[in-house]
């Protein structure tokens, strides 16, 4: 049986990818993973083989990512990001769709496909970094909008705007890179 440290190291590439997706900063992602792996080593008894190692590590890493997001927000509060122009083009001057979003057939079936998640990750990578960070804190980590605003020092209104942009952009992106291609 491989020793615990080796098994942890094997998970490092996966964890780095996961952290980079959310932090958008290679160095910060490496640091968060390093902290998570150290915490895992120190807390080996907490694992005790009960659950899947990757799941357990990801749980520890999530805390480290939230810490990193907090630190980053303290150092450089989230300012504005570019406007809604990109989405304005989707609507006419009366605010109606120029073209309806296309129907996605059986989206749930995609959830069992690895390639779908690869496409989703690519779409997330294309989001502006602040937008992506807020969106993932909300939709992946499940924080309340109020908590996110407080931690990042932004108003609720700004938070909602960022979340709206993320949803619009991801919808468009998945449409082109996944659902439209099937």
């Amino acid at each position: 049986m491989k020793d615990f440290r080796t098994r942890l190291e094997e998970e490092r590439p996966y964890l780095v990818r996961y952290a980079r997706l959310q932090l958008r900063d290679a160095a910060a992602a490496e640091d968060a993973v390093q902290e998570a792996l150290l915490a895992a080593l120190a807390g080996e008894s907490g694992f005790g083989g009960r659950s899947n190692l990757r799941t357990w590590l990801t749980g520890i890493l999530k805390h480290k990512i939230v810490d990193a997001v907090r630190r980053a927000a303290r150092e450089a509060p989230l300012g504005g990001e570019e406007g809604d122009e990109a989405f304005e083009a989707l609507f006419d001057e009366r605010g109606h769709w120029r073209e309806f979003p296309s129907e996605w057939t059986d989206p749930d079936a995609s959830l069992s496909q690895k390639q779908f998640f690869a496409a989703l990750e690519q779409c997330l990578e294309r989001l502006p970094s602040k937008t992506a960070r807020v969106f993932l804190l909300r939709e992946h980590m499940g924080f309340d909008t109020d908590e996110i605003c407080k931690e990042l020092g932004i108003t609720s209104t700004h938070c909602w705007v960022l979340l709206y942009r993320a949803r619009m952009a991801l919808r468009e992106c998945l449409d082109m890179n996944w659902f439209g291609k099937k």
Partner: protein
Amino acid sequence: MLNCRETTRLVSQGLDRRLGFAERVAVRVHLAICKGCARFARQARFLRKAVRELGSS
């Protein structure tokens, strides 16, 4: 009467805060008659489900 831009914004906010009664009614009325916004609403809910599962494989 809400237009599609306003409706999609409220649909999105509805995933992040509890909409007021008037807002909920206005959104529901619009979704009942607008295929485009109804799709957006379904897809936004699906995105939530998909992103939650991200990395759990």
